[in-house]
């Protein structure tokens, strides 16, 4: 599913313990720091607070592995505003959204917190965020500094509520050794849908004796059918979030891409991929290709096949396309310290803060031109392809209640990928049901 789940097992376990510790610490701090100075009313427009402005704010995040980089950011922020105290509150991914929804219901959201694409419109349309309009008008944040698709992701009805702190795109990871063993030429930039189908099939045929497949098909949207539907020239949800692209011939082609890989034997089938996830097929050397995200570089470099791995841009369909997603910092509309929270929002969006995030290896920073550290992090992989992908990226498909239809996709598409149900039938069913869910918003 979403990128932030993906480094899961590790993230979740560590997140739990430190999350509990952080909670205790936050409680302690809240107990000690009685009465910061009351917030000045921020009025309509954002102006940076005075240098000695005193406040205490909470920053809600879900990824424990990024806390070191966040603390480094806050240190920099405190050089500018020494009297604004920032408490970082880590809630592990599994509980983050449940907790956030409860906080939203009781007007106790953190002053500033992380937001992702699928949840953004739900919160924005319920008036949970402070717009960044006045920050942008004042020139404190320039939207042109970030990938446009991500600015669009955090804009609803022409109003922007956040800028991305990081991003991720999709490419094809492949195993050089398996290509060599099968006698198939490795993929190169500029390759096409036909190339990936032919190569995958050839490897499956050549190495079937070892139980090795050409590709482990992606069965999720972000690294799978969203990309291929876009490559076929279609879209999943229209830009205004009102109309689904399912039901069109382009969507059918994007779905058919995966059905072809599976029914031709180029990829393990849906049963096999359900029992053993695609990434595991790839990292255990049982599949030669894997379409996945930039966030999977850690899984690759920690695997037994790390020296055989390489990465190449997505193959071209009717056009070149990838889904892009990134996390944004948003300020709660009901924050008691809005001005301080916005000051932190501005600082975290700055080039210096994002460069630091990249250098500390936390994420690919979103600020244009700060990403070299990510590329250099694992020199033997051609990680540049993930940056080049910005040029042909499309925002992650979302609507006001993304989860209402996102659950339907897997349910309807999986049998079609397996060839148990015809692609046209699944496509038509999705068109009806997803549109009904959108209309209900």
């Amino acid at each position, binding site marked *: 599913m979403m990128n932030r789940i993906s480094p899961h097992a590790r993230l979740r376990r560590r997140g739990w313990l430190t999350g509990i510790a952080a909670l205790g610490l936050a409680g302690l701090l809240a107990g000690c720091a009685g009465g910061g100075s009351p917030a000045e009313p921020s009025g309509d427009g954002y102006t940076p607070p005075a240098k000695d402005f005193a406040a205490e704010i909470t920053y809600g995040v879900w990824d424990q592995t990024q806390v070191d980089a966040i603390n480094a950011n806050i240190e920099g922020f405190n050089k500018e505003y020494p009297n604004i105290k920032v408490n970082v509150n880590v809630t592990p991914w599994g509980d983050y959204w449940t907790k956030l929804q409860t906080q*939203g*219901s009781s007007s106790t959201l953190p002053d500033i917190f992380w937001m992702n694409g699928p949840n953004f419109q739900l919160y924005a349309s319920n008036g949970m965020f402070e717009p960044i309009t006045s920050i942008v008008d004042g020139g404190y944040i320039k939207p042109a500094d970030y990938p446009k698709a991500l600015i669009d992701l955090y804009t609803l009805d022409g109003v922007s509520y956040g800028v991305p702190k990081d991003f991720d795109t999709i490419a094809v990871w492949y195993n050089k050794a398996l290509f060599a063993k099968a006698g198939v030429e490795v993929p190169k930039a500029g390759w096409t849908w036909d190339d990936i189908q032919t190569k995958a099939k050839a490897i499956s045929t050549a190495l079937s004796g070892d139980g090795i497949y050409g590709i482990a098909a992606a069965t999720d949207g972000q690294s799978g059918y969203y990309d291929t539907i876009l490559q076929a020239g279609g879209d999943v949800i229209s830009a205004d979030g009102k109309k689904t692209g399912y039901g069109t011939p382009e969507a059918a082609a994007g779905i058919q891409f995966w059905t072809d890989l599976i029914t031709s034997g180029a990829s393990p089938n849906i*049963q096999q991929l*359900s029992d053993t996830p695609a990434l595991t097929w790839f990292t255990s050397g049982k599949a030669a290709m894997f379409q996945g995200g930039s966030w999977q570089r850690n899984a690759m470099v920690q695997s037994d096949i790390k020296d055989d791995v390489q990465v190449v841009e997505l193959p071209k369909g009717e056009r070149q396309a990838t889904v892009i997603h990134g996390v944004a910092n948003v300020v709660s509309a009901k924050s008691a310290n809005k001005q301080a929270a916005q000051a932190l929002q501005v600082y975290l969006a700055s080039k210096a803060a994002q460069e630091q995030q990249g250098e500390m290896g936390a994420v690919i920073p979103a600020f244009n031109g700060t990403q070299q550290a990510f590329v250099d992090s694992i020199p033997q992989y051609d990680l540049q392809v993930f940056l080049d992908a910005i040029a042909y990226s499309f925002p992650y498909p979302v609507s006001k209640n993304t*989860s209402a239809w996102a*659950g339907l996709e897997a*349910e309807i598409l999986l049998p079609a990928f397996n060839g148990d149900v015809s692609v046209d039938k699944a496509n038509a069913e999705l068109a009806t049901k997803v549109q009904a869910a959108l209309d209900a918003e």
Partner: protein
Amino acid sequence: MTLSLRTVRTPVVSTPDRRRSAGPARTDGWWPWAFVAPLFLGVCVFYLWPILQTVYFSFTKFGVFGGQTWIGAANWARLVQDPDFYRAILNTLIYSAIVLLGIPVAVFLASLINRPGLRFASLYRVLFFLPYIAMPVAISLVWRMMFNGDFGIINYALSLVGIDGPHWLSTPGLALISVSLVGFWGSFGLAILILGAGLKNIPVELYEAAELDGATPWRRFRSVTVPLLSPSVFFVTIITIIGSFQLFDALYAMLGPNNPVMPATQSLVFYFYENGFIRNDKGFAAAIALAILVIIGIVTVIQFRLQKRWVNYD
């Protein structure tokens, strides 16, 4: 309320009629209630009030950030028309039936373990009880690995005798059976413990008398053990059914995300979870939760009715 606590406390001592007439006169005053109050308040605040609220929510459209809109019986109308609901009931019944099959086996195993003079009796008891104290999710993950269609140990063992094993957890129909088998296996621990305690209450003299009359071990099991154990069996049946109606974690952990058979395999509680927490439709989920409560209630009442035919309290 004028009910005396004494009537609750000593139901066996006097006949109901005498107590009822004497009750109000011999009331204990208010202070016994002070002792029950903490528990009573807890039950009200954490059980009764939420249940009443859930009833209310089931007639509303539940806003994502709180706020309910009254929509009458729309959720209920949708529920009774939803084929997924009946599918979930059927799946839950199949699961319960398979897990219930474990009870006769548990009776048999418990009487084997409780044979007088059996060596390592406590070891066996521990072995059978272990699955009960282990975390259900941990157990499910281990079984998930064993059931793996391509690399699992079960299919490896089958391949040694020339059988090409199926994908246990991702084939329609088979997935539910596989999960049920794990539930079947996991239910032994508690059942054997309770049944073992029941067995200890059966007087040894009855076995001796039966033996003198020339009863075979099988006959002694059937004519002494089984009838005298029936109250324990009844209790185990009740808690097993309630437990299996709440099937969720094993299903969730064993089938995993992106499993093609999940829609056809989901249990009632999973159906509730999906609507309440994945699709954010909490009003509809409240209706499902109440339906589950009612179904468990009905099944339990039926069991209490039927028990008169087979449970022996003498």
